[in-house]
């Protein structure tokens, strides 16, 4: 049980840290929410990694959800923030369901590149239809009500911080349950043996589609929250660079346990903040070195390293 205990402790400590930092230093609320958003998106990308598939286009679902929020908020300014978020997630799930039907036929490099290609089409469509989408400048979103209450900027961010944190914990728990369920283990079976899945009477495509559908919704939620906290959506939300960052975080944090997504996101955000403050212009260098370090020292990511350590400790009776 040592492992579970550690993860509970990590979750509690991490959550407290987010809240205390956020309340003590108001400027940190936005980076913390953004970090949590990255973690939620990475949960989805990590599900694909468990199936042995790496998507370089998943950020498109953040983009789809973000623009859905923006369009709706501009058309009906009275709509509540929670409704906007739900609509954003709904749109990304719908898109994921449709795109999923095509992409689950492919594996490996083809899966990765097909996702990339679709996200690039979306990216350029948004850039082209300037009158509707604001082109590369994006769209502003006025601060909506939350659960019927109007908030000042500070209060809005605090509520968003608490809400995002709650969503991150709840979804982390649900996604971990999914990973360990029959569906989730079959998903991991896609990585090692699709022939056996087929000869168990299962459709590997169907199993992968389920995972893809959830992953689109998770990335979508992150995009909707991101749009709310920034008050702005731009095509960059769906760029291949952003997709690459999700993959980066998934590998950094590891996909052995759902919490890996958040550990990865935390390290990613910290490195970015640190570099922005002390080593302007070289944050890519710092991130690159971090990733090389992780791949060499902990190929299963941060969580893989921790789980191995705690398994060793358990075996030694510690």
């Amino acid at each position, binding site marked *: 049980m040592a492992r579970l205990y550690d993860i509970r402790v990590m979750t509690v400590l991490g959550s407290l840290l987010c809240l205390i930092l956020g309340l003590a230093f108001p400027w940190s609320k936005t980076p913390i929410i953004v970090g949590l958003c990255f973690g939620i998106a990475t949960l989805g990308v990590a599900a694909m990694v468990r199936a042995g598939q790496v998507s370089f286009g998943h950020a498109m679902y953040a983009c789809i959800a973000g623009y859905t929020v923006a369009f709706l908020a501009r058309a009906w300014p009275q709509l509540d923030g929670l409704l906007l978020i739900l609509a954003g997630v709904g749109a990304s799930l719908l898109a994921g369901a449709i795109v999923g039907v095509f992409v689950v036929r492919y594996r490996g490099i083809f899966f990765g590149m097909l996702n990339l290609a679709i996200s690039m089409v979306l990216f350029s469509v948004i850039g082209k239809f300037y009158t509707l989408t604001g082109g590369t400048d994006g769209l502003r979103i006025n601060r909506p009500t939350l659960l019927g209450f109007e908030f000042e900027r500070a209060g809005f961010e605090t509520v968003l911080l608490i809400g995002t944190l709650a969503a991150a914990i709840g979804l982390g728990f*649900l996604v971990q*349950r*999914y990973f*360990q*369920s*029959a*569906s*989730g*283990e*079959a998903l*991991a*079976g896609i*990585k*090692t*043996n699709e*022939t*056996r*899945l*087929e*000869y*168990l*009477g*299962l*459709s590997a495509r169907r*199993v992968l589609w*389920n995972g893809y559908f959830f992953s689109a919704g998770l990335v979508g939620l992150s995009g909707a929250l991101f749009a709310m906290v920034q008050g702005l959506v731009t095509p960059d939300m769906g760029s291949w660079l952003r997709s690459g960052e999700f993959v980066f975080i998934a590998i950094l944090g590891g996909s052995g346990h759902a919490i890996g997504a958040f550990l990865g996101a935390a390290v990613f955000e910290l490195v970015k903040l640190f570099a922005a403050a002390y080593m302007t212009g070289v944050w890519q260098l710092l991130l690159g070195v971090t990733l090389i370090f992780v791949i060499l020292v902990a190929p299963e990511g941060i969580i893989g390293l921790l789980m191995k350590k705690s398994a060793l400790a358990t075996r030694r009776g510690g």
Partner: protein
Amino acid sequence: MGVLIRTERLSLNFGGVIAADNIDFSLEEGERLAVIGQNGAGKTTFINICTGFLKPTGGRVWFDGKDVTGMEPRHIVRLGLGRSFQLPQLFLDHTVRQCLEISAAARSGKLSFLLPLARSVDAREIDHTLELVGLRDRSHELASSLPEGQRKLLDVAMALMLNPKLLIMDEPTSGVASEDKHDLMATLMRALDERKVTSWFVEHDVDIVSRYATRVAAWIAGKVAADGPPAEVLASEAVRREILGTA
């Protein structure tokens, strides 16, 4: 006792190689068929066509009364066919126990999303099957850590977990230490009889064939050259000359 699987003029060529040459074949419920034949005779190819892995260039296959020609393997599996492989097909990143749990969960056709895998299956059934193939003490090790012989057993166990009507095993004892082969076959056959599973296994060892099969079919160059009671087939001229090399 009805016909469980039947083929009619089943054929397939790979380029110039005729791997299945107009095969008419049938297997009755309750039989234990051993298939013998030299390397490259087409034993695995015939299994691959019958289970939907390869599409035949001609002919038809019926399983349990249904025409399954050209159907995907998973649909044929759902009708009650289990298969183990010459090269074991395992979930190498999963533990031995999880491999069987996934099989057991797949049997119902509906995989749960939130219930932990171990709790969505009957633990006693998993224990029983692990015991049967002698993998109980390795149940928490990764499938990838097993030696070849035990991989084969796990592969068979995964197919058995589906409670099939027909179990096809492609060389279940290859890679298993020779002193363990008889024990293994005896246990397997007992389990199959208990569950009333019809079986068909490919086997090179004549001792095992004559001991455990109720019927033998000999494959030569994509054709069934001899088919009947073990003693008769193993004594036939063509089999002794072409397969056993004792004539």
